[in-house]
């Protein structure tokens, strides 16, 4: 069966060869893409960031009428050192909030990771958050907060293992109440946010 006598066979051979080359090329690039460390790393980054945002929101949200539920949510968002601290302080904090009858809500304004160690399962995160505290008989107070956190991967997803205010370097304990013309001072000073476009500010 010579190829010259059977043009169709020749055509089929060419088609197969062509298809094989294509398949090999596409297969290799698929393998490369699927095996891409960068893609895994990017996915971890986004997972860690999403978890951090949610956890920071949770840890700055508390309604005195649902204390147990709220504090349970705090603990569910935390791990490690932070979880230990929360558990230790829970009773005292509960009493305080029950007495003050406050309703605290939080909105993450912006957040990003500064570092991610995917292998160790740890990441550092910067979070800009607006916290609104409503006490009975008072106008709700909104303030913006600069937070530094650390998230750690657990068997149950990423959780916050540390959270605190970003230190104000220059002021050494001084406060930010005197707005210097721009930046965070403005929004907080003017109380209820002037930015009506933002959702989630129930204001209570």
């Amino acid at each position, binding site marked *: 069966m010579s190829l010259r006598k*059977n043009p169709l066979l020749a055509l089929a051979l060419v088609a197969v060869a062509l*298809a094989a080359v294509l398949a090999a090329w596409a297969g290799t690039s698929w393998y490369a893409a699927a095996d891409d460390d*960068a893609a895994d790393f990017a996915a971890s*980054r986004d997972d860690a960031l999403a978890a951090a945002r949610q956890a920071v929101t949770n840890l700055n949200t508390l309604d005195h009428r649902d204390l147990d539920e709220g504090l349970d949510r705090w603990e569910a968002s935390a791990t490690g050192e932070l979880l230990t601290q929360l558990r230790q302080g829970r009773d005292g904090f509960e009493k305080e909030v029950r007495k003050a009858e406050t309703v605290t809500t939080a909105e993450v304004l912006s957040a*990003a990771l500064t570092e991610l160690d995917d292998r160790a399962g740890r990441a550092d995160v*910067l979070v*800009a958050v*607006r916290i609104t505290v409503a006490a009975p008989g008072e106008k709700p107070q909104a303030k913006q907060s600069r937070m530094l956190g650390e998230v750690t991967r657990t068997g149950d997803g990423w959780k916050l293992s540390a959270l605190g205010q970003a230190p104000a370097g*220059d002021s050494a304990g001084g406060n930010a109440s005197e707005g210097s013309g721009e930046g965070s001072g403005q*929004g907080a000073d003017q109380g209820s946010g002037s930015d009506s476009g933002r959702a989630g500010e129930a204001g209570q």
Partner: protein
Amino acid sequence: MSTTRHLINRRRRTAPPAGESPAAARRQSASAVRARPRTRPAARPAESAAKQGPVPARRPRGGGGDRGAGSAAPARGGRLTAALGAAAVLLGCFAAFAAVQASGGDDPAAENAALVDAPLTSEVKGGVGEAVEAVFSVDYTDLDENRQAARTYLTGKAVGQHRQMLADVREQAPSQKLVLTTTVTDSAVELADDGAARVLVFADQRNTRTDTDETSYGAAMVAVDAVKDDGRWRISNIDTFG
């Protein structure tokens, strides 16, 4: 010579279908394992050829019967052609599927180079930090410096935003002898690619009235969008979360 071939050929034609072409059957089942349901029809030519095995008149192309002694080769060629065609279709389908998978166009996480591309991330951080410090620092002795910084580091919407934010400071600077210094304390890159980025910046601000020797401190946070322009990162939008 030709008679033997003829005999072989006839024996082959009259053989029961099951034993007719074990190789073809094997090939078929192998391809069925690899193929997705959609590609199965491609295997059908081989299947029907096998079924039609015992009926010489309906043999696949090649017209073996007409040529007498030479019929064996074209018949085998026909089956081979069909099998090759099927293989080509399968390989083609696989190639298309793999190419779509490889392109990963539906994975937004992979498009954001923040942290993934460490050099780019630190370049963005450095560039944006430099820009923020420059445009939010004002010295009453050299107001032009701030104006120059704005020209260098701002673009688009940020130009107007910056002018509005600093209007008071610039106005009062000469009479109060103001020196406003902004220092970036922390920053994190939220989004980055080759030409655009979004960065969250925490900064400390020190504002000194030299005339009365009063100093106030401010803790600022801003989210800025930046674009790379002429090898320099320039701020294109400033979000103060107001």
